[in-house]
């Protein structure tokens, strides 16, 4: 029996090592593949972005026009916004960014009704090729990756996407981050009848406060921004006023500016939007122009030392 156990054990270990090595090589290949999401992480983890102005966001400000910010603010800006990420996930992106890049001077932090929810589900597949990286593993240790995904070679990759990981991608275009643009108006998404509610999860709020405090201690200027949203979304939301009061109060309490674009003119015109939550390219251009001007304005504090809270 000993012989059987030893042979089985040796075979299992040998196969595990072989498959783990293949998984490592495949993961490395995925990182330079044509997959947009992998490209973003590869670029960020490679370092050297060293932006002065960093946009931290979910999908709503992910595609903000960083070239407009650059020219207006005379700075280097970069967006680390990710689709579907509430703040409990945005913090991972920010922490990993800081591990590989120098600290920004300004953080343009998107806030909205989804920011302070604690979200459990997310597209974890975008991290799969990076789970070999100890820093990524450590940062994501509390995320819902299963034991199998963490430790079994190839288990996390989907068979139907396997070949796409082998397809080499075009050379990275570092800024702005690539990704699908919302262009076609999708009226069915978030229909008028759907009523949203602004929720705060204590866990997310604590993380958010720690993040703001730490950034301020590091001398980073933080600006809270509520990006434009189609008017009926906020009208239908159950507690819009409460949300705005919360962010205004939060900004006052922490001595940071809050730029609210939820009442901008373009919010009443769906031709600036791809859907109720996301601006299209035209809308992004108008919004980023206004945002850049507003940031330039608030970067000079008022005489009393208080940061203004602007509504557009």
């Amino acid at each position, binding site marked *: *029996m000993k012989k*059987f156990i030893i042979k089985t054990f040796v075979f299992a270990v*040998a196969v595990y090592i072989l*498959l783990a090595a293949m998984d490592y090589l495949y993961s490395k290949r995925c990182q330079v593949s044509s997959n947009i999401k992998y490209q973003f992480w590869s670029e960020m983890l490679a370092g050297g972005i060293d932006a002065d102005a960093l946009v931290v966001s979910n999908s709503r400000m992910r595609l903000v026009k960083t070239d407009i910010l650059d020219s207006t603010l005379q700075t280097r800006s970069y967006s680390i916004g990710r689709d579907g990420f509430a703040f409990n996930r945005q913090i991972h992106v920010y922490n990993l960014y800081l591990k590989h890049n120098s600290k920004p001077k300004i953080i343009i932090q998107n806030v909205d009704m989804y920011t302070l929810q604690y979200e459990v589900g997310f597209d974890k597949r975008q991290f799969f090729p990076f789970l070999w990286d100890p820093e990524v593993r450590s940062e994501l240790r509390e995320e819902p990756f299963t034991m199998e*995904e963490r430790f*079994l070679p190839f288990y996390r990759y989907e*068979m*139907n996407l396997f070949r796409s990981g082998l397809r080499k991608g075009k050379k990275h275009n570092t800024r702005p981050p690539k990704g699908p643009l919302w262009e076609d108006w999708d009226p069915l998404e978030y229909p008028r009848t759907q009523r949203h509610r602004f929720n705060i999860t204590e866990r997310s709020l604590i993380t958010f406060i720690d993040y703001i405090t730490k950034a301020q201690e590091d001398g980073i200027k933080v600006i809270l921004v509520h990006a434009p949203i189609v008017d009926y979304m906020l009208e239908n939301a159950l507690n819009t006023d409460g949300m705005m009061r919360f962010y205004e109060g939060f900004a006052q309490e922490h001595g940071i500016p809050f730029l609210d674009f939820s009442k901008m003119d373009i919010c009443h015109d769906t031709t600036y939007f791809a859907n109720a939550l996301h601006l299209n390219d035209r809308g992004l251009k108008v919004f980023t122009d206004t945002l850049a001007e507003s940031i330039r304005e608030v970067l000079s504090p008022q005489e009393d030392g208080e940061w203004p809270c602007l509504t557009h």
Partner: protein
Amino acid sequence: MIFNSLEFAIFLPIVFVIYWFVTNRSLKLQNLFIVFASYLFYGRWDWRFLVLIAFTSLCSWASGILIERNRSNPKAVNAISAANITLNLAILGVFKYYDFFISSFAKMCPAISTDGLLLNVILPVGISFYTFQALSYTIDVKREKLEPTHDIIAFFAYVSFFPQLVAGPIERATNLLPQFQKKRTFDTAAATDGMKQILWGLFKKVAVADTCAKIVNEVFTSHQEYPSATLALAAILFTIQIYGDFSGYSDIAIGTSKLFGIKLMRNFNVPFFSRDIAEFWRRWHISLTTWFRDYVYIPLGGSRCSRAKVIRNTFIIFLLSGFWHGANWTFIGWGAWNALLFLPLILTGKNRRFTDTVAEGKLLPNPREILQMGLTFVTVVLGFVIFRAPTLTQAGKYFSRMFRLVGDAESTKFIEFQGIIVLSIGLMLLVEWVDRKKEHGLDLSELRSGFLRMCIYAFLIFTILLCADSDPSQFIYFQF
């Protein structure tokens, strides 16, 4: 706990080590540990239903003892065995068929309301399997084919042995129970072969069945939107899926048992290489078909009686086989379809034409054999459409759309067919064809090169890992 999970991959080595190194000094202790491990295995699904298994085991064991004590009184023997059979079937009936009968009756008599009559209980996993296993014991003891056991622990181990508890093979007491009554010794060759069989079973389940399932589930759910060719393809894929799923489970169960020095009966014997439906049924779900043959068909007279009775017996056995799968008219319809296919063979005395293996001693089958296998496969596929459909009406609509030759113009959905499905099915069929005379597909004893064998095993493990879903899917037969 399911076989294709990390939980089982941890559970199995722990049970193996304790079984052979800690409890091996005493047969009773080893059997007690088997019962404990089996109850733990089952309890991971739902602890409450362990009471049901224990009750079934206890009643069947006690009935065996009572039959032995009253052997001189045939009436008492009949009464005891009838009571135990009735009790077991009543439990099965309540959990599996009660709601079906009530709602079917209510449909026939619209004046009757089902309010308050339906139990809406969940179906205990594997109830049909362990109930039939317990029944076989009582019947065999009554027929004096088997001495009743006084060893209650061995009996509990027989009913609940975890590798085959939830989806078979449905073992006979005459085969399995004696194995729990004598000391087991570790057989390296059998254990090694068991490991290979587990690997092959996992491949069939994960790489074949689960990859087919994605297309099958989608097409069967909204078949009215797909072209005919896709419906035909999904029907074929479901037939392959159910084979990969169930024979994969059986291979894992048999292979796991070998690790514990227990030999289970074969449940599938390359059924897709059958040349007629009779041969198919000798090769498909063997433990169930032989159970019905021995305990229902032959007692009814089998084929050695009048023509009318042969027809009756054939229908009874196939309808019962169908109904065993679940409380739905589709399973009865599937049974009837198979009975209709089988009947001409048995009435013309051609049901045992093919008792050998196809193209024995040859590399490839001849054109006639290819045609026979192809036709048999098509009839099996048609039957499985009825089996898979949620209702007979839906099955009818599926057939209607499939045979109307609906083209792409009338369809709104199309499937994305992946190469991996062709590869995994092709590999499975190729390996099973080459090894069709062997006990399982991965018996590579004729392959001299150890390195090559290792490479094949590593490749299969790689494919399994790549095809595995982050949420391991249940085996289809768990629901039966």
